[in-house]
């Protein structure tokens, strides 16, 4: 790991000014991606601005049909939240299967969403449920947030403060996890709620999370696994690696989507 300066601000405003004052600052949330990245010297920020001391970034609230989760809330807290289990159980279950128990005790929703790893779980939930990403500067719809591989609409020095999810009457997430890392080889979040009928896929796309319009229209008329059984997803623009070919991922998308619908 290269050297860096460490800052531990007590407020979002202080964190933003620490970022502004840094040559090449990076935000540190739970560190479950950032620290391995630094250890491999894949990044060499001049400054790390640690969000771990900012109380206003933590917490879960459910009211008026909206689940709101502070950016520094860890996966274990989302998985264990009785309020989320009751309002949006698919989200709690998703959180409960990220990485392993120790990763869930440190990793945060804000870090996951800001990183936009193409195999991360939360981006699929954000897109399928029509979440809003609240930042230190503005509110961004999930539809406009995920812009590519590890790319988001966030500006330099912009800090995610919380993420709000409209409660959907139907929602489920199923993933085919890589047996070693538990990242999604393919993960599919299906939802029928205020944002409409949506199918969002993670783990498969070369540009990160994406929706499947053919499945969405099939499910709008008939929300059943049979309705999407014959929808084939093209392997163009899907990832291929030692774990799975693009064709295999394309096949898995339909299988995972059917399982997700069948779970509801």
């Amino acid at each position, binding site marked *: 790991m290269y050297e860096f*300066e460490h800052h531990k601000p007590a407020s979002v405003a202080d964190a933003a000014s620490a970022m502004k004052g840094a040559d090449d600052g990076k935000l540190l949330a739970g560190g479950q991606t950032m620290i*391995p990245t630094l250890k491999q010297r894949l990044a060499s920020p001049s400054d790390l601005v640690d969000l771990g001391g900012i109380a206003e970034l933590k917490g879960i609230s459910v009211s008026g049909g909206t689940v709101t989760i502070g950016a520094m809330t860890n996966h274990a807290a989302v998985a264990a939240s009785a309020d989320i289990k009751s309002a949006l159980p698919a989200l709690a279950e998703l959180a409960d299967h990220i*990485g392993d*128990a*120790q990763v869930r005790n440190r990793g945060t929703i804000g870090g996951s969403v800001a990183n936009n790893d193409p195999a991360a779980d939360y981006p699929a939930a954000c897109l399928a449920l029509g979440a809003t990403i609240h930042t230190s500067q503005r509110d961004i719809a999930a539809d406009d947030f995920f812009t590519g591989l590890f790319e988001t609409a966030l500006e330099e020095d912009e800090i995610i403060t919380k993420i709000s999810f409209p409660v959907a009457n139907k929602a489920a997430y199923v993933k085919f996890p890589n047996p070693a890392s538990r990242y999604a080889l393919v993960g599919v979040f299906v939802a029928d709620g205020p944002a409409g009928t949506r199918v969002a896929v993670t783990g498969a796309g070369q540009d990160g999370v994406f929706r499947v319009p053919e499945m969405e229209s099939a499910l709008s008329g008939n929300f059943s696994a049979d309705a999407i059984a014959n929808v084939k997803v093209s392997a163009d623009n899907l990832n291929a690696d030692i774990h799975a070919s693009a064709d295999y991922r394309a096949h898995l998308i339909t299988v995972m989507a059917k399982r997700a619908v069948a779970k509801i």
Partner: protein
Amino acid sequence: MATVSMTVNGKSVSGEVEPRTLLVQFIREQLHLTGTHVGCDTSQCGACVVHVNGDSVKSCTMLAVQADGSDVTTIEGLANGDTLHPMQEAFRDNHGLQCGFCTPGMVMSAVDLLKKNPKPSEGEIREWLEGNICRCTGYHNIVKAVQQAAQA
């Protein structure tokens, strides 16, 4: 350099560290508590698991400065003098180790499991231990040990 202070196994400690110092480096190299192991160093194997404010974490994937002000428990903090913690006793009774390298992390992870889920099923134990790798493949007896500790 930064000054970090924390409680480790009930004792207040502090030290000067570079910001890039990992919590496991601080524990092993400055506090000389070498029961916490470094296996893969890539957040996967779980040999470095300790408790920070009561939750199990991988101390190779946390900076010492992030643990400033925290309450840390390592494997050395479990036993009460010569009396082993029930989880350690259960690992001994069930031969829940072969080479022993992964054992500190397995025990710390399992203790956290029983705190959150006192009566786990075999499946829940296996799922919880996903983040702990035993290269001797001794999982069967490890799971038996956790089951015994859950009945203690």
